[in-house]
């Protein structure tokens, strides 16, 4: 039920809003945070690349707050853990194959090396 003519209460609100002034200064970085939040919200609804954009925003947030050293060390530790686990898994797989072959050699005369 909308009408083109504003009511009295709407006119009063308009007047009040036009007269309203922000006297207190905004906290430092407020504007940047607002834009970051806007970008993050847009990224979430953007589709498959949303994760990477979100990650980038998160990292930017960390860097902005002086948390870069922690992020850097955490990333290196995670990289080390992943590398060690991957390397060990490969070596275990290789060793498993060698032990299988050794077992077969131990029971099958035709798998042993003969002179």
């Amino acid at each position, binding site marked *: 039920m909308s009408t083109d003519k504003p009511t009295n209460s709407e006119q009063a609100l308009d007047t009040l809003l036009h007269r309203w002034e922000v006297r207190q200064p905004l906290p430092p970085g407020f504007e940047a945070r607002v834009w970051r939040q806007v970008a993050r919200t847009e990224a979430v609804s953007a589709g498959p690349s949303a994760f990477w954009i979100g990650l980038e925003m998160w990292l930017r947030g960390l860097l902005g707050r002086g948390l870069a*050293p922690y992020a850097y*060390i955490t990333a290196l530790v995670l990289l080390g853990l992943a590398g060690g686990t991957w390397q060990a898994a490969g070596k275990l797989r290789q060793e498993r194959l060698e032990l299988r072959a050794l077992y077969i050699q131990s*029971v099958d005369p035709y798998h042993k090396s003969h002179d």
Partner: protein
Amino acid sequence: MLCLGLAAAAAAYALAYYSRFALSRTNPTGHPAELAWLQREFNLTRGEFERIAQLHQAYLPDCVAMCQRVDAINRRLRGLLAATNQVTPEIQQALAEAARVRTDCQARMLGHFYAVSRSMPPEQGKRYLEWMQSQTLLPTFHSAAELGPASAAHERDHH
């Protein structure tokens, strides 16, 4: 900061590597590593594993004797093949002897595999038997019919 980060990464790497690799390859059984592997691979209890280790030890002298027979017939066959370029009666006899040795070895092996599989839980025993048979007794080559139409045509051209 760079050095600290790299040191932390190296420590994390070593921790992950040794906790995953070194600990999982310990062999407290006192038996050879390939037997200890059998215990892990087929989820054997201590009792099952000890029984299988005994069977393995009892089978080894048989296996060594079979190896000697295989070596002897191979040596003889090699000498005969080097001395001529025809299929002589001696070569035929040696080939027949080699086939007999192989049959004998395979029968003894199969007997050992059955004994080992009976010492395992039924499902694991079945898996062990299938695996050992495929690795030792079943041929690794295929007939032309098994390999497909191209090989079948190749086979036809030969006959």
